[in-house]
């Protein structure tokens, strides 16, 4: 017998279901189905809950990004003018082409590079570098498009060909030709990622073009305008449907410099092809009338996107063309330092006009011989002759009697060894040594020989051409000097007064008058009808020993040539310092100073030398208007 249970199951399957053709048999299965329906609905609803309630903001923003397109309206940067209102830096309009990487198809690249005359490898490298930047940020792939390139973009940027291309209208800085005033003006560039992290740059946005050097950097806030914006609603095809926001661009304000282009150009031409610097200051106000540094760079190369080749050329150049020698180079002043030594010694009473020293071409101090530049010696010299002939022996003695700390007091008060506070970034400090300084930084005792050396502007002392002009100008002006500046800003005016006996200054000034006019070393700076005073300087880069040893001395080991001059002798108006790096002899620098002075006094005699002409409001206020 088969088991009962088996029987029962047989019976059940064989039982004709038609006998009970109702739906009760499936009741629990229908119930199960109902629960499945509930499950499916909960599953779907959870999706809507996440998108609409939890992540609503994310998706609303995404929707806004989809439809709202904002295009910047670039503000023009302010012009830079000279003291007579002549335009030095202007803008010009041009087209750039941007590449949207969201739509980019790789197979389009060869045609695009060909149409835009780009280097294919260069562009690929560029795209690789931008890999980490979010894709919605477009890249400028070419600037300053030619008419043919504009036509190429316009005829190809339809949705079916190269939708990734877009033309944008941009303003470019137009700097003067031939590197004129490159260092003073500086240049502009796009703010970098690294800069954006700095607190000073927090006010800028990605993509802003800001001043990177010179006046462009110093007065960026005035020169830079505020970009406008145009917000439109676009559909999925990119068609504009509606303008929802419009903000006009506010152009930057123009800036007038104290520089006089006529003086500037003369100085530029004189330095052409040399390494050196010229600084011309108005003694009475501290206005910079001219400032040149050579070799220079072409700021126009930075105005757009600088090409790698150009950048390397500038950066790797051993002559350092980016370096503003007028305010950044620290060189020994050589004999141009002697007027300061003379002034300090007169004031301290260690010498007077009649004090003489006997120059035999060499003299021993602290157990070692010190030579004069004139080997056969100047004989017995007083201050007047010592300045005229730049006798080293006289100043060794004078400095030795004076002592370094007394000398430091005067140098320091005339602006040496610290920033002058000129309105240019990255100014050099120079060095006015003292016994304290040596103890503090070198942890050594100040030696008598150190003082002797500083007495002729060698050794530890270092100045920038600007500091030298300022110091000599200060002496010429009877101890009063103003903070040098390129822009007349009443808020930044600062006058320093050093109390000195007018007799002391007139002695020194007369010595400097003799340098130029009484058979001294600076005769080539003489200017008919103008009482030019000055001082030559030949600053050694290496000691006399080195010079004697090698007959073939490399160019960059030769001495620096200085000349600093001012005029007129009484009530001086202008001081000019000139530096030739490796210029062999000081007298070579004097003609430059003479030429600059000549232009100044020519203009003055024709009554065309004038104060800055434009109405200027204090900086930081609106209305730097140019009429």
């Amino acid at each position, binding site marked *: 017998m088969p088991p009962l249970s088996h029987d029962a199951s047989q019976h*059940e*399957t064989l039982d*004709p*279901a*038609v006998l009970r*053709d*109702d*739906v009760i*048999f*499936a*009741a629990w*299965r*229908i119930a199960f*189905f*109902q629960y*499945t*329906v*509930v499950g*499916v*609905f909960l*599953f*779907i*609803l959870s*999706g*809507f*809950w996440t*998108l*609409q*309630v939890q*992540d*609503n903001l*994310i*998706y*609303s923003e*995404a*929707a806004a990004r*989809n*439809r709202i397109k904002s295009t910047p309206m670039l503000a023009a940067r302010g012009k830079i003018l000279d003291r007579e209102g002549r335009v030095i830096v202007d803008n010009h309009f041009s087209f750039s082409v941007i590449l949207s990487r*969201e*739509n980019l198809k790789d197979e389009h690249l060869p045609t695009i590079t060909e149409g835009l005359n780009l280097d294919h490898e260069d562009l690929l490298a560029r795209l690789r570098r931008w890999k980490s930047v979010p894709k919605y940020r477009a890249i400028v792939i070419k600037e300053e498009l030619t008419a043919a390139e504009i036509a190429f973009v316009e005829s190809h940027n339809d949705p079916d060909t190269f939708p990734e291309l877009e033309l944008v209208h941009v303003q470019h800085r137009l700097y003067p030709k031939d590197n004129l005033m490159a260092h003073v003006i500086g240049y502009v560039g796009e703010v970098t990622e690294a800069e954006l992290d700095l607190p000073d740059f927090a006010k800028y946005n990605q993509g802003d073009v800001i001043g990177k050097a010179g006046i462009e950097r110093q007065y960026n806030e005035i020169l830079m305008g505020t970009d406008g914006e145009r917000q439109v*609603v*676009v*559909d*999925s*095809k990119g068609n504009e*449907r509606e303008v929802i926001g419009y903000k006009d661009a506010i152009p930057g304000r123009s800036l007038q410099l104290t520089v006089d282009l006529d003086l500037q150009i003369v100085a530029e031409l004189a330095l052409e092809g040399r390494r050196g610097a010229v600084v011309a200051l108005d003694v009475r106000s501290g206005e910079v009338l001219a400032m040149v540094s050579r070799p220079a760079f072409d700021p126009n190369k930075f105005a757009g996107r600088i090409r790698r080749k150009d950048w390397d050329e500038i950066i790797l150049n051993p002559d350092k063309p980016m370096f503003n020698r007028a305010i950044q180079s620290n060189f020994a002043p050589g004999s141009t330092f002697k007027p300061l030594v003379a002034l300090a010694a007169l004031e301290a009473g260690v010498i007077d006009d009649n004090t003489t020293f006997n120059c035999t071409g060499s003299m021993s101090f602290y157990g070692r011989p010190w030579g004069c530049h004139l080997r056969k010696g100047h004989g017995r010299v007083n201050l007047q002759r010592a300045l005229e002939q730049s006798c080293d022996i006289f100043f060794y003695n004078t400095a030795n009697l004076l002592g370094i700390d007394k000398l430091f007091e005067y140098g320091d008060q005339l602006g040496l060894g610290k920033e002058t506070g000129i309105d240019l970034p990255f100014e050099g400090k120079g060095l006015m040594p003292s016994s304290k300084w040596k103890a503090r930084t070198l942890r050594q005792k100040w030696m008598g020989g150190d003082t002797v050396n500083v007495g002729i502007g060698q050794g530890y002392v270092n100045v920038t051409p600007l500091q030298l002009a300022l110091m000599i100008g200060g002496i010429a002006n009877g101890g009063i000097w103003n903070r040098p500046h390129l822009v007349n800003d009443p808020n930044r005016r600062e006058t320093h007064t050093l109390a000195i006996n007018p007799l002391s200054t007139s002695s020194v000034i007369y010595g400097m008058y003799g340098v130029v006019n009484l058979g001294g070393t600076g005769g080539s700076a003489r200017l008919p009808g103008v009482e030019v005073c000055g001082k030559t300087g030949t600053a050694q880069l290496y000691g006399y020993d080195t010079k004697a040893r090698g007959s073939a001395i490399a160019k960059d080991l030769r001495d620096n040539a200085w000349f600093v001059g001012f005029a007129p002798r009484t009530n001086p108006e202008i001081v000019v310092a000139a530096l030739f790096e490796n210029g062999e002899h000081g007298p070579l620098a004097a003609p430059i100073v003479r030429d600059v002075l000549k232009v100044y006094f020519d203009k003055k005699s024709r009554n065309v030398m004038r104060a800055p002409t434009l109405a200027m409001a204090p900086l930081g206020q609106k209305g730097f208007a140019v009429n």
Partner: protein
Amino acid sequence: MGSYRTLRDLDWALLILSLLICGLGVLQIFSATRGTKWQNAWWKQVVWLVAGLLLMWLISSIDYHTLLGQVPVLYAGMVVLLLLTVVIGSKIFGARRWIALPGGVLLQVSEFAKIVVVLMVARFLTELKTDAINWRDLLKLVGLVGLPMLLVMKQPDLGTSLTYLPILATGIFLAGLRWQYALSIGVLAVVLIPSSWFLLKDYQKSRIETFLDPSRDPKGEGYQIIQSKIAIGNGGMWGRGVTKGTQTKLQFLPVPHTDFIFSAFAEEHGFVGVVVVLGLYFLLLMQIVQNAQTSPDRAGMYICMGVCSLLLFHLLVNVGMVVGKMPVTGIPLPFMSSGGSGMLSVFMMLGLVHNVRLRRFVN
């Protein structure tokens, strides 16, 4: 047989629910297509709705037992038309899914095939006269459903062919699928589904890949999913307001009146609107299930449950797709998506349900 039926005996709850959803659909089509080249779609939808109601009445008035009796003829006709579609169908977007009828009407046979499949499955399972289906019958049924599926897949239209599966699966489940069978089928599926990957066409593979990672192709396949999710998320709790959905109006949302109508709705009406509409759908499905439970016989139950499972599957796949939980398949949303064949077939299926309802009192 008491053959006298009155309108009073119709399932009014079901009718009202379906008309409510259709009404919202028409409004949404109007809102989403205003000012576009489809701006006439809303009134065409109304015309289709009226036609659908007529067909519904027609179908409900013929006793479903009569319809079941004609299954062999209907099935044969369906297979012939599907074959014709593959051969002479109008090619649109690279697929032959439509037969051009005189008067410019495109007939999508695969939509109407659903009704035949529902009836065929119901008759087959009823005739088994057993409470537990065996292997032989199971395979027979799979074959019978598999044939139209293969023909539709051939068009190619993977999405629509998949809609026949839930009818089959639900039928088998209700007919008493033994757990051993279910387990075997499960194991088979685990083995077969990955290997079927190699049978899929490239575009089908890429759709599934894109579903798994929409950002893989944000301007192509993934674009639709991303834009749809943005539209839904943009709706928020209360929605952007009628005709104010920017994703919809500015055409970021693809086909906002057909496959993606629910995202357009969700953008304009928000989560609250979504809950309301999904609630209507839920009640509608439950009403159909109730008709199955009160069916006078198994055949009626199978018909109702077949229709219900088909609608559930449509809902899951379409709404799941727009919300990013299902791959893009191109399956329309019943009652709401603009389109004639879908509208007619869904109301014909409702006609079947009413049909069962009208005959629930066996005398």
